[in-house]
């Protein structure tokens, strides 16, 4: 079971991980990935637009795919939307499993697919008043392709 959540506000990664591990003593490994707003020179904010009717369904599909590939993995995905400042967290992926290889693989898979399969778009605001939409990266497509 990999739970999903979409929200504008911040999340508490420690509380999420504690909830996931509570009462479980069969899990030997937990991986928590946090994606953060980088303040590239002059960036003042990032706004995440998304496609409300499709976003949760797509996150759910990605979570199901990971659960099917790594049946022993439990976890969660929390993705924020709206306007975020440098240093703020955008996304949290936590995976836990009996052994570490599955937890690491599932966390990377979830991030690679979120980057390429979930309908979010990032707009950058710059100190000079300009803004621009982030271009999709070839490296993200390459990363996603390794799970084909």
């Amino acid at each position, binding site marked *: 079971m990999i739970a999903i959540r979409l929200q504008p506000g911040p999340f508490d990664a420690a509380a999420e991980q504690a909830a996931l591990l509570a009462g479980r003593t069969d899990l030997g490994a937990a991986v928590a990935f946090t994606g953060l707003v980088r303040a590239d020179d002059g960036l003042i904010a990032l706004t995440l*637009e998304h496609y409300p*009717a499709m976003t949760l369904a797509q996150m759910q599909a990605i979570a199901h795919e990971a659960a099917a590939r790594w049946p022993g993995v439990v976890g969660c995905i929390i993705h924020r939307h709206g306007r975020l400042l440098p240093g703020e967290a955008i996304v949290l992926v936590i995976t836990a499993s009996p052994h570490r290889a599955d937890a690491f693989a599932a966390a990377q898979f979830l991030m690679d697919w979120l*980057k390429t399969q979930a309908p979010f*778009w990032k707009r950058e605001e710059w100190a000079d008043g300009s803004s621009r939409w982030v271009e999709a990266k070839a490296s993200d497509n390459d990363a996603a392709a390794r799970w084909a």
Partner: protein
Amino acid sequence: MTTLLYFAWVRETIGVDTESLALPATLTTVADLLDWLALRSPGHAAALANRARIRVAVDQAFATPQTALATPREIAIFPPVTGG
């Protein structure tokens, strides 16, 4: 009627975030739809000029230019996604 939704710079270039359109029965694929939409206004034409930068979802499932339209209720047009 089909609901068209636009996101990110596709939305900004077209100038509206949604419109409700009666699609002609002659449009059989996503590629046909994009050709037809590009004729609606200079904004549509500009947004759809480079098809390599356009992605489409038909009834909330990712589609390709070859995807058949059938009778969609909702079609979204947007740039490649950049979340995560």
